[in-house]
């Protein structure tokens, strides 16, 4: 598809590939993101890939929308597959008791039992479409359709850090305590954002995530191990 170029003031240009949450659209966004990072046109400050578009933040003193559009159009014409920089991460999640405050409500709304919800949530390899909302907050999909629910009518003022949440066709992790309107079905001891790490975010757009159920004892043990700095999160490169 031919993308739309949308001016966002004089310091950003959005290149929009569609208007839906869709893996094909996401692939095009991430491909252009990679092409620009590999060979950045003059004046680009940073890129932000999202579900359906790539935002290019630029310095209007160093380039112009007209120059950028021309340079990006040339990059779009080059067929280029992203190389295998993405990774598949295995994330331990406790779906029990206090770690899963909304599990019963989700069961009620979906007509499933808790064990089915856990099995369904863990059965899928999720694609990281984008990060946003908070540092390191991943929007991942797609959820098994049986788990798709609208956001909570009554958002929480305080969602604990590490919460695993679902809403609409997506699942996410809250890296920080914050307000939030998604359904909390579990929690992970893994830290998804740490400014002293390079890169500071565990996940990047284009990565894949698999959740693996653990019990409360394992949660506590892993958290202790992370605090001691000797926990290694399992991951592997994704084949191109």
């Amino acid at each position: 598809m031919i993308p739309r170029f949308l001016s966002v003031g004089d310091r950003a240009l959005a290149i929009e590939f569609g208007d839906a949450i869709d893996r094909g659209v996401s692939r095009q966004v991430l491909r252009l993101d990679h092409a620009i990072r590999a060979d950045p046109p003059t004046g680009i400050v940073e890129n932000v890939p999202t579900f359906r578009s790539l935002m290019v933040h630029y310095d209007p003193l160093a380039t112009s929308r007209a120059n950028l559009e021309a340079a990006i159009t040339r990059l779009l014409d080059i067929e280029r597959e992203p190389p295998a920089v993405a990774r598949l991460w295995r994330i331990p999640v406790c779906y029990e008791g206090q770690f899963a405050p909304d599990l019963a409500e989700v069961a009620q709304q979906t007509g499933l039992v808790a064990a089915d919800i856990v099995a369904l949530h863990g059965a899928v390899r999720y694609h990281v479409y984008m990060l946003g909302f908070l540092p390191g907050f991943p929007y991942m999909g797609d959820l098994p359709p049986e788990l798709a629910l609208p956001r909570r009518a009554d958002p929480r003022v305080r969602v604990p850090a590490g919460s695993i949440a679902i809403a609409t066709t997506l699942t996410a992790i809250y890296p920080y305590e914050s307000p939030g309107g998604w359904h909390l079905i579990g929690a992970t001891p893994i830290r998804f954002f740490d400014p002293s790490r390079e890169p500071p975010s565990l996940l990047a757009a284009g990565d894949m995530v698999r959740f693996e159920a653990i019990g409360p004892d394992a949660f506590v043990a892993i958290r202790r191990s992370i605090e001691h700095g000797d926990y290694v999160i399992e991951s592997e490169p994704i084949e191109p």
Partner: protein
Amino acid sequence: MTPGFKVLSPGLHTTVQDLGRVGYQALGVPVSGALDPLTFRLANALVGNAEGAAALEILLSGPSFEIIADRVRVAVAGAGASLVIDRGARRVPAWHSTTLSRGETFEIALGHRSASAYLAVEGGIAVPLILGSAATYVRAGLGGFHGRALQFGDIVPIALDRAAERTEKRLLLPLSTTDAHPVRVVLGPQQDLFTDDAVTALLEAEFRISQHADRMGMRLDGPHLRHRSGWDIVSDAIATGAIQVPGSGQPIVLLADHQTTGGYPKIATVISADLPVIGRRQPGDAVRFAAVSVEEAEQAAHEAERMLAARIASFAPVPTHSGDIDLNSLYVGNLISGVVTASE
């Protein structure tokens, strides 16, 4: 002992800022940095710093400090602001550098003509850079002074214990604040999701900054802007200055601490040359918008940069005898105010 400022009263929301944390928006990290980067850069220039050196941003009410260093050069920048030294023994207006000594106290009085002011110190505030920046992002506790606004009793570390001995500087042509000019916007990226009446109202009606204004964004009171059909879009990225309109129809201008992505349509985006103007507005202030093309916005960005350079080039020494009439300042002020652009 580490040189610094001891916080005697913190003000409403005083944070360490710079020109922003660039390069991590793809990981969900907001840019943050000064709400009014133009005034911020002038403050640093007045004390001889690089334009992006870490300095304090003061919002709505001013803090007071005690000097814990031998000799400190500071400048406050912001319309109507001033430094009140030793409980009023000495006053230094905004846009002047001055030197303070150990044990002296000073308050930043805002004067209520601008929502924001900046205090720059020669050598800069000495906080560690987090992801390449000293900017404070309070929601995630990132950067600045322990990731938060200043509190009573904090000692804000500064880089220099003894500032250089030299003549103080002042700005001859302060930024004007009686700003009847509309704030310029580029329509979009999603103006096509709004009714024609909504776009007309944005450009013709008067809005007021509501009480709901902080470093993330300011809600505007005024006509509600109606969407053609739904308002829940698939999230995309946000630029500083974007005017997003949630289901209520009440527009929100997104500022330095805005989230990197969001799911509400953006009817227009404030141009970069006018972001500093927005950063000075306070609750209750009126605001109007006017649409320009991207090309005009880009020209305005170049013009704003030229004006800043002209202002810095025209810094003058502070007269040592305050009673003297400063003919040079009058002359340069008249000369340059004739070419001040419509944005200010």
